């Protein structure tokens, strides 16, 4: 192996490792984001008030 080819291989290896590292960190950040702020479907206001009202009625003797 010539020194130039060795250097090329080294750059290619470091390059690919760097890309995978970057993407792996990105992956972990997205997972963290999902854990910290999980998606919650917003209930429509009317439906919520109806449900609350029903619950209150049920609670009353």
């Amino acid at each position: 192996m010539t020194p130039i080819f060795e250097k090329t291989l080294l750059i290619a290896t470091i390059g690919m490792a760097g890309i995978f590292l970057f993407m792996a960190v990105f992956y972990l950040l997205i997972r963290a984001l999902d854990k910290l702020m999980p998606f919650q479907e917003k209930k429509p206001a009317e439906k919520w008030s109806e449900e609350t009202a029903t619950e209150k009625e049920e609670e009353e003797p």
Partner: protein
Amino acid sequence: MNTLISLTDNLRTFWSYTGFYNAEPGHLIMILVGLVFIYLAISKEYEPLLLIPIGFGILVGNIPFNEAANLQVGIYEEGSVFNILYQGVVRGWYPPLIFLGIGAMTDFSALIANPKLILIGAAAQFGIFGAYIIALQMGFAPNESGAIGIIGGADGPTAIFTTSKLAPHLLGAVAISAYSYMALVPVIQPPFMRLLTTKKERVIRMKTPRVVSQTEKILFPVMGLLLTAFLVPSGLPLLGMLFFGNLLKESGVTRRLAETARGPLIDTVTILLGFTVGASTQATTFLRVESVKVFAIGALSFVIATCAGLLFVKILNLLLPKEKKINPLIGNAGVSAVPDAARISQSIGLEYDPANYLLMHAMGPNVAGVIGSAVAAGILLGFLY
């Protein structure tokens, strides 16, 4: 008699300035190439938004003229109108502006919903480094090899940005090669997708991605910018603008700016970029053995990138439980030809299972490929610039 002699001299001078007098076989070959680009764009609809400006640019750049007369009409003549417009390519102004527009039109939801797809976008970058090694073995200098390798990212603006820094003399060949192969993605990728996958793998159905909240969509570009800035600062001009454009889109309060970035701005820059890149293929500077080699390595880099993406999914599937397996047909989308590569995943998938819609899944690795190729460009610039 004197008047007649003078008239003859004038006509002779006029003739020496015409295209017919200065035409060489190279000009005619390049004009033919330009016409083929225009034909492919109109007739086959291969990337018409790029191939029409590039094709017409090739025609304009190859109109023969008396280069010694300093007419200031050629793209390489300092001070000419085309030369001024070309500075956006040479100095690397256009690619970040294109990335701003791409960011403003890209929805990263597919990636956020299934983040492991981001790794496919990393694997496909083997195309860049594979081509880099091949170019070096074919006798190109390290900086030239880096510029040629970036063709494998299947990303025109990234290829132009990197080449303008590493090997400006190869700009025309690299840009034309990158855009040509991007347009030919529907022709290049399918045979390798069929070759490297089994019928059983092609019908794998993936789970519908989860819904992504607005907060996640807003935080994603901010996180992306900070990660880029700290890990690969040399990729900042491209990735910084990509994430900026995406924040304009997702913030919900800058709709006008987002619409300008993904509409009039990206259109204007695409016209200027495509036209000037086309015009830079002047036969006298473009038609060389080097350019042919660049085209050959460019084709190989696309093949390597496609195969790397497909094989990576197959390897990943060995580690995943049955219900989470990934359809390897989305592996080709790891290259950043958005959204063409993802559309190919969809169309090949539909051939084997008419109810299996892979487009939304393929968009994940596809947008990851845009990020991955820009990171690769940053790494190459970090080593070779």
